[in-house]
């Protein structure tokens, strides 16, 4: 490919990348997309078929005046857009930017036009970065980086070629045609790509190193939040059903402390909100009064237990790293029962049923760590036949609306065989699991008595029906229980090692109260039939989601605290290394001093004072070090003093000297090369011409540091070869 062609192509690719990124980030009007597309196509045609359609394009080209009018109209259009159409600066500005891009693409004549195009493309990429945080930005950025390196390099070379037309630019072969245009060689191609790879490496390094000191004056992270159901103050029975088909990702959960993949594949309950009041059609929370959580150092918020001073260290339990998408609810999710959260929050609140809330919903992705303490029934309570519940619990968690008598009868009938409270709970749980069928196609919202319909008539339903039925059956037999909504994470990402939680994972379950154990999680809903998905698609989806998460974690949400953590980690590992080295050194020194002590003891009786021995040893050690350093320095200097060709000639000369030595003409150490040459002439005149030529080459290199051409080098080699083939009849002394 010709240099000019490559330069134009890379410039257009640069602009196209930024434009595509922009078009994905914001919905551009159809006419603007078409206009830009045409401009790109024309620019490409001009690059690839310059001679073929140049005439046609010349006819199609507008005059400078037309383009000025076009720009003027675009500017007027920007103001109209800003004031009347979109009424926002960013979209109006982007539309104007695309118009500028079209203008520049159509008038790429001079070098400054290319510079303008690069500036526009950079602003477009910047605008795209302002509008999105999606993972698709990454490949566009990468392509932009590579194209940027190519473009800047080619721009420089084209400029050099134009300014110094007599010279041939780097890495480019002369074109066979009479024109002075050059071609891109494969070496140039790979070198430039290596440069781009280097630029990418440096970019990553800088990205993670630049201190995050964002003050956020003009921060605009507003994104459309995901609509959720089931986490408001009042939830109608059956409200979760419609979202059970929605695959939108709500959050991703990592369990950093869990060991083994199998354990992580277990379904994970992510508790959201609990409800205690049921009116026959909907659930509500009568204990919605919220209190602020105690903030501990490093952004940890913990639930206060009356009478206990909160500990600075988070409670040891299940740690979950949660990346929550922007939702329309302020609820913070966590495995039952969350006791503390750590994140970049101003404050965290909790209601009386242990649900965690932010003061207001976040419109950006938030990342936090939740610590939960799983609750199990203690053995004494597992066998208890009855409990004495506190008054507050009786008031709040035993409320039953006016339900059909058949429901009460069902509860008593199911629990009749039970001998303990936990047995009663188990029987109701088992009854629901075994006698009812999971079905999402249930019109509960239209039903006047959804609970009775589920339990007595239809016997099919989904999580809300199961959970509501269990709570009501338990309360009917005098066991306090409440309904909890949240998510049941079942989708384990093998590649990223985390749970992907989607809207369709919205779930409702039950918490049963045991006075000493606390609230025990029970899920009466049978597993939903698995949606069959092709394995390859599932894998691809997992990989993509894993990439998305990594992008979010590493790039979009990289923060000052992450930098601090990295620095802390490096410091800690450095300290570990230092401690280990110190230990080893101490051990070595200990051994050394013991040996030295023995040595000294052995010497001292001989009458040599210890100080003198130390002094002698120190001087000896310094001398050895000095010698080594000098040797090292000489080696380096010698290495650098001669080029490869020069070194070859020196070696050839040494070989020649050896060759003469084999024939009985030994070079004394004191003889200079020319003296030795004279000696050779006297001793073996046939060999003299070759020796003379080689010696002269050698002296030029050795003493004159003269460079050698390849021809001279090959001549030296052939001279030595000739010398070796020469047979020496007899030394003159022998002849005499």
């Amino acid at each position: 490919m010709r240099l000019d062609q490559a330069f134009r192509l890379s410039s257009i690719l640069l602009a196209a990348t930024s434009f595509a990124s922009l078009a994905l980030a914001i919905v551009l009007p159809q006419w603007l997309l078409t206009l830009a597309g045409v401009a790109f196509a024309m620019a490409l045609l001009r690059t690839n078929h310059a001679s073929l359609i140049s005439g046609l394009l010349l006819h199609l080209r507008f005059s400078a005046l037309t383009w000025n009018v076009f720009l003027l109209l675009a500017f007027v259009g920007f103001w109209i857009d800003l004031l009347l159409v979109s009424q926002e600066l960013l979209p109006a500005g982007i539309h104007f930017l695309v118009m500028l891009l079209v203008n520049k693409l159509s008038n790429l004549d001079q070098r400054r036009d290319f510079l303008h195009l690069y500036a526009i493309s950079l602003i477009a990429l910047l605008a795209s970065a302002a509008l999105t945080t999606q993972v698709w930005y990454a490949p566009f950025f990468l392509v932009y980086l590579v194209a940027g390196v190519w473009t800047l390099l080619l721009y420089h070379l084209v400029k050099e070629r134009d300014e110094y037309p007599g010279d041939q630019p780097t890495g480019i072969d002369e074109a066979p045609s009479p024109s002075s245009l050059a071609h891109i060689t494969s070496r140039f191609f790979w070198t430039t790509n290596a440069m781009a790879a280097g630029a990418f490496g440096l970019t990553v390094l800088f990205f993670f190193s630049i201190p995050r000191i964002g003050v956020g004056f003009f921060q605009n992270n507003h994104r459309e939040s995901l609509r959720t159901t089931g986490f408001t103050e009042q939830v109608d029975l059956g409200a979760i059903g419609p979202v059970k088909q929605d695959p939108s990702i709500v959050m991703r959960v990592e369990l950093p402390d869990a060991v083994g993949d199998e354990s992580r594949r277990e379904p994970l309950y992510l508790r959201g909100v609990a409800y205690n009041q049921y009116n026959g059609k909907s659930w509500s929370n009568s204990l919605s009064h919220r209190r602020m959580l105690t903030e501990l150092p490093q952004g940890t918020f913990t639930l206060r237990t009356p009478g206990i001073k909160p500990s600075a260290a988070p409670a040891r339990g299940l740690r979950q790293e949660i990346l929550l998408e922007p939702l329309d609810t302020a609820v913070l999710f966590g495995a039952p029962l969350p006791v503390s959260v750590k994140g970049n929050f101003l404050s965290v609140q909790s209601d009386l049923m242990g649900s965690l809330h932010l003061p207001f919903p976040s419109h950006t992705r938030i990342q936090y760590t939740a610590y939960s303490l799983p609750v199990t029934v203690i053995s004494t309570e597992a066998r208890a036949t009855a409990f004495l519940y506190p008054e507050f619990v009786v008031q709040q968690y035993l409320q039953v609306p006016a339900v059909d008598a058949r429901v009460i009868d069902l509860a008593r009938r199911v629990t009749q065989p039970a001998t303990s409270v936990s047995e009663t709970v188990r029987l109701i749980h088992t009854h629901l699991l075994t006698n009812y069928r999971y079905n999402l196609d249930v019109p509960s919202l239209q039903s006047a008595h959804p609970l009775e319909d589920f339990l007595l008539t239809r016997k099919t339903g989904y999580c809300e029906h199961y959970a509501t039925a269990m709570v009501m059956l338990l309360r009917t037999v005098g066991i306090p229980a409440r309904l909890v909504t949240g998510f049941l994470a079942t989708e384990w990402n093998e590649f990223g090692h985390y749970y992907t939680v989607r809207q369709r994972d919205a779930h409702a379950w039950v918490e049963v109260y045991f006075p000493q154990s606390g609230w025990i999680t029970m899920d009466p809903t049978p597993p939903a039939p698995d949606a069959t998905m092709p394995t390859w698609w599932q894998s691809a989806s997992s990989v993509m989601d894993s990439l998305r998460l990594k992008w979010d974690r590493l790039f979009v949400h990289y923060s000052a605290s992450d930098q601090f953590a990295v620095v802390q980690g490096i410091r800690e590992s450095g300290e570990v290394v230092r401690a280990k080295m110190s230990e080893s050194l101490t051990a070595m020194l200990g051994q050394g001093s013991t040996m030295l002590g023995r040595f000294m003891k052995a010497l001292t009786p001989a009458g040599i004072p210890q100080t003198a021995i130390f002094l002698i040893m120190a001087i000896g050690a310094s001398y050895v070090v000095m010698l080594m350093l000098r040797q090292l320095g000489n080696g380096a200097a010698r290495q650098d003093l001669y080029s490869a060709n020069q070194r070859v000639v020196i070696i050839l000369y040494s070989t020649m000297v050896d060759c003469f030595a084999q024939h009985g003409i030994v070079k004394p150490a004191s003889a200079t090369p020319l003296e030795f040459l004279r000696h050779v002439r006297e001793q073996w005149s046939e060999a003299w011409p070759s020796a003379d030529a080689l010696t002269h080459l050698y002296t030029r290199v050795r003493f004159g540091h003269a460079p050698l051409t390849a021809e001279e080098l090959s001549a030296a080699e052939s001279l030595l070869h000739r010398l070796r083939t020469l047979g020496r009849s007899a030394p003159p002394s022998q002849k005499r």
Partner: protein
Amino acid sequence: MALGDPPSLSMLPNTLQTCVRWLSRNRAIRLTTEGTRFLLLTLAVGIAAVNTGNNLFYLLLAMMLSLIVLSGLLSEQCVRRLEFHRHLPEYLFANEPATVTLWIANRKSRVPSVSLHLFDVVAGQDLDRGIHLSHLAPQSSMLISYPLLVRRRGQYRFDGVRVITPFPFGLFHKKAFYPFEASIIVCPEIIPLPELRLHEMNAIGQNQALARRGPGNSLYNLREFRPGDDSRAIHWMTTARTSKLMLKETEAEDQRWVTLAVSTVAPVEEDGAFERALSIAASLLDLLLKDGYQVRLLLGDQQGILASGPEQFLHLLHPLALCERRPVTAAASIRQAMAQALAESNGGLTLLLSPWTDPAQREEFPAVDHVISPQSYGDLFDAVGSSIPA
């Protein structure tokens, strides 16, 4: 020629201080127009990143910074480990272009040097000779010739070579200095001297010439033949007339002597005239030596230098090239020294070249036959302003 190669990293002294000193002396960076714009854009993106806290802005900022750093690293690779040799002519004349040859070698084993602009560094100034190398392959060398035009006589010192590269992106000009000193003597400019005036001087020279015996064609003397004389020189006609063997002696043709005294005294404002006087002196010497004169040059209070034949021209030019103007305050002592030297003259034409006219001068140099000064040869000195810069 001295070899100037910046120390490679392995040869760098270990102390940071020395390293920094070396860098500040041998490396410099200058922004190009494109580079300034790029830096401004980087700054803008940086401000946007800090203000918004948007990590994708930080990513763009990192990309732009990486391009800047990459530019620095690659340009350093381009300008390091180069080797230079300079081949200078034996001497130069002011305002007369000469060819200088520069040999440059890339001592790197793998990395080529690209887009190199070479500058001569003279008296701390970078002088552009229009040398540009697009590509110098690793382990290769190149010979570059360029015209060198020096405006002033004197010693012309090269401090070294400055290598500048805008590679790879043209954002910066990386400058590397390779110190290797070299010097060359720049002789005064040789200017054409008007024919008429030369004839006048020649005439004076002829009149003042003292005839001497020696090889030549003109008859010098006839004398009686003595044993040992060349028999071919016997003048047969006179021998026949006088009946004695008579020998013809010829007049030596190289007998013509010229003493050129150049006054080095001139006030500061007459510096141009002084330089012009030296040019005139050099041009005169050139002509006289070519014409077969034996010349004695008296340069101020310096010892006289004798020369004959064009091959000894340089012998005379050297002191002219390095001669310095003396202030008026030193005029008396110089005059005295010159007068003394002129009094010891062994005949021949004596010319005094005086860039500055001192009324007392003529009286003090009675032996001078001809004075060349701005007053007597105004047209010769008139070209002062145009051809010899101050």
